[in-house]
């Protein structure tokens, strides 16, 4: 998109060595802070911080950048993101005692071994510490946004003040769906559709089971979407296939792109959203409405809200395959029932409407007095270190002069010594190296980003899977090409690192030579390394 620059950081759950780092990563905060210093944005809209660092919100606060954050899922309440326990149970309420075992089971490598003598409360305190930390950082943005009123209420119930969080539903681009005049397929099939990733929280297994109970031979189940491992669970697709038991009426279509969506929707008679987690908005429901499809969804959370408690679709108890089968049977048998709940595009908010509202929010937070941060108890440098603030307010020449004067005073305190002149000389010699190192640093960063992007692309290709042998072969070739390219970048990075190490050595040699000269004047030098 024109005018939009993208900066990526590659950091996965597997790159972290303990649990708290999932939420607070100093290195990512540092990189982000440098970015903020360069870009100096007027407003920052934060969307999701998983695998980044929630302390980026602290960096924004410190720099006084007006910030809006959209809470797209439950990650800040549940580290697994969707309040779905590994047992498959949906956590209707947040119970941190239950969280401890859940987290340890999900990411054992982030908790360390249960060592003899290690305090038993460490895991509990770690999970609680995340809670405290999240509460603290969630107080930092000027405004929080939830995509649904339901999701807003969840965060208010958790403790976010109601005036700090607003429900702003997403808008969708209008699409042209080639809806046939006779909605049913020419061969009379009744096509039940699912759109989305094939992960347990989406409840695809509930739909497959419901379909198996449908007892309507002309019905088909069209599953569109990619499969990904869901935390520790890598076997979901396999289980779905087993559940489908080779039923030829069930088709796993695999991944689709936005461009294919209208055609996919046009080939369906009913759309099912069987999520066993609450959802926070559901784009899929809206996509169904844009295609004038009847939508059936789980009766909870943001889905219940979207379907206006059953006035804009049919609801069934979450996870209840028998009830879903009953709804689908009725919709199959009764065209009038289908037409009664058929979706309408006017129920879907447009992107333009959403943008208008967000612009208003940006304007609103951008014009708030910045002093509000300190009044709210946020600690800043000015409050805790006024002397450092005063120093930073001095012009560079004054700072240099002050430093030289200070070194002279130090010299007088330790007689026979006058280091200011030496400092000037060293600073001159070092400045050339500093510029050189900065250029190399930029180049290194760019290479690292490129390498990471290539690796990520290769991984995504591998995860995508293939529908045919030919496609599989093409995928493998592309993955191999990307890997080779990434290895090339890695070689170049190593060369640059070696360059940098050499520059550093030169600088240290310069420093050492000056140190030895001054050590000689002090009549000693035994504390120093041997002369080079």
């Amino acid at each position: 998109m024109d005018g939009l620059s993208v900066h990526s950081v590659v950091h996965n759950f597997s790159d972290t060595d303990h649990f708290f780092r999932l939420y607070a990563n100093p290195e990512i905060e540092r990189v982000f802070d440098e970015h903020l210093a360069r870009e100096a944005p007027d407003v920052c809209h934060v969307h999701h911080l998983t695998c980044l660092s929630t302390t980026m919100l602290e960096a924004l606060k410190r720099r006084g950048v007006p910030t809006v954050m959209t809470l797209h899922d439950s990650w800040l309440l549940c580290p697994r993101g969707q309040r779905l326990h590994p047992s498959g149970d949906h956590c209707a309420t947040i119970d941190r005692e239950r969280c401890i075992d859940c987290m340890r089971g999900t990411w054992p490598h982030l908790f360390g071994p249960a060592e003899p003598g290690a305090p038993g409360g460490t895991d509990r305190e770690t999970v609680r510490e995340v809670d405290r930390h999240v509460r603290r950082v969630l107080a930092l943005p000027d405004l929080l946004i939830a995509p649904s009123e339901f999701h807003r209420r969840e965060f208010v119930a958790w403790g976010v003040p109601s005036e700090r969080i607003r429900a702003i539903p997403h808008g969708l681009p209008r699409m042209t769906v080639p809806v046939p005049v006779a909605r049913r397929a020419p061969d009379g099939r009744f096509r039940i559709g699912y759109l989305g990733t094939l992960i347990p929280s989406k409840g695809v297994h509930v739909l497959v089971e419901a379909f198996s109970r449908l007892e309507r031979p002309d019905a088909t189940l069209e599953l569109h979407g990619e499969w990904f491992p869901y935390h520790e669970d890598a076997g979901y697709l396999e289980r779905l296939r087993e559940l489908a038991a080779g039923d030829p009426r069930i088709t796993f279509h695999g991944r689709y792109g936005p461009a294919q969506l209208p055609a996919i929707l046009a080939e369906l008679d009913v759309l099912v959203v069987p999520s066993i987690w609450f959802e926070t908005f559901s784009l899929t429901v809206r996509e169904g409405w844009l295609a004038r499809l009847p939508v059936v969804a789980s009766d909870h959370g943001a889905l219940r809200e979207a379907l206006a408690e059953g006035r804009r679709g049919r609801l069934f108890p979450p996870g209840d395959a028998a009830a879903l089968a009953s709804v689908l049977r009725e919709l199959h048998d009764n065209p009038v029932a289908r037409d009664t709940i058929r979706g309408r595009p006017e129920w879907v908010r447009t992107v333009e409407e959403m943008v208008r509202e967000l612009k208003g929010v940006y304007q609103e937070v951008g014009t708030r007095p910045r002093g509000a941060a300190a009044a709210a108890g946020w600690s800043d440098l000015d409050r805790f270190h006024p002397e450092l603030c005063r120093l930073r307010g001095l012009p560079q020449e004054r700072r240099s002069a002050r430093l030289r004067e200070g070194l002279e005073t130090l010299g007088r305190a330790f007689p026979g010594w006058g280091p200011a002149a030496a400092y000037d000389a060293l600073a001159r010699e070092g400045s050339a190296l500093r510029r050189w190192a900065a250029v190399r640093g930029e180049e290194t960063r760019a290479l690292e980003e490129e390498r990471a992007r290539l690796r990520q692309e290769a991984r995504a290709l591998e995860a995508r899977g293939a529908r045919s042998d030919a496609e599989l072969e093409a995928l493998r070739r592309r993955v191999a090409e990307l890997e080779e390219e990434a290895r090339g970048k890695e070689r170049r990075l190593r060369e640059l690192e070696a360059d940098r190490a050499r520059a550093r050595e030169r600088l240290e040699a310069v420093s050492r030579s000056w140190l030895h000269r001054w050590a000689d004047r002090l009549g000693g030098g035994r504390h120093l390394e041997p002369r080079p």
Partner: protein
Amino acid sequence: MSQVSMVISTAGASEALAEGLDDLRAAAGEGELLLIAPRADEVQADGCRALPQPAGGDWVASANEAVRAARGEWVLLLHEDLRVEPGFLGPLLQHRHEDDLFAVVPRVVLPREGGLIESVVEMVVEDGLVGAGWPSLRERERRWLRSGPVFFPASPCALFRREAFLRLGGFDPLFTPRGGADMDLGFRAWRRGMRVVYEPASIVYHGGSGSLEGSLDARDEAAVRWRDRLLFQWKNVTDPEWLRAQPATALALAAQGAALGDQALLEGLDLALQALPAALKAREGEARVAAARSDREILRDSAPER
């Protein structure tokens, strides 16, 4: 346990304080519980004595004031973001009959660092600069199970002999705001022949909410650390060889800062140089004390044991 005063420094009536207060109240037993906050009326709580923070004071001034006001023979200083395991006080108090004991620290576990230990601190000397090292953090090792010496009582949680604390003048305001006042205090205690001991059977958790210390970015933190580290040398170091290295080291740091564009280092050095007269004055005071241990003996005696 009536001889123990527990002192919690707090930024106010925070959620962090409220959450941990019941456990501490239970642990205090017959001892007293003091809360020291910018506004004492904000932190009224059953069974607690509230003290106002000294005007313009930060944590160092507050802690000194609280120890003066405490009635117990032993004073436990705690940050408000500390959580305690039941029974944590008993193992600390088992050391109270050791005559030369200045302070005892519990096993301060850092949930934010995967359970590593904050209170196992060693003295390190690098390039003529005396500093502190955290072996548990450096080695990513959670198991420090032996009671033994540590370099200084880490400020988040430590039990002090009140009389000795006051005799040493408490934490030195030279290291405010934030900073290395605890390292300085520990060094002075060791120098006078006292000891600081780590007790792993006493377990507490330090969340590090930052409510007391504020939130500084990495550059700010680094600048303040450099300032404190240099001031520590200029105030305390007496070993001739280490001392001789000081000006040359300062020069090397200045050169390194200028050459590599390390602004935090230059700022830390500048701040330390501005406070040099105060450090030298404090040094004169320390010079009048008969040292029971030399710098190198402190390095040897305060080394933590595995």
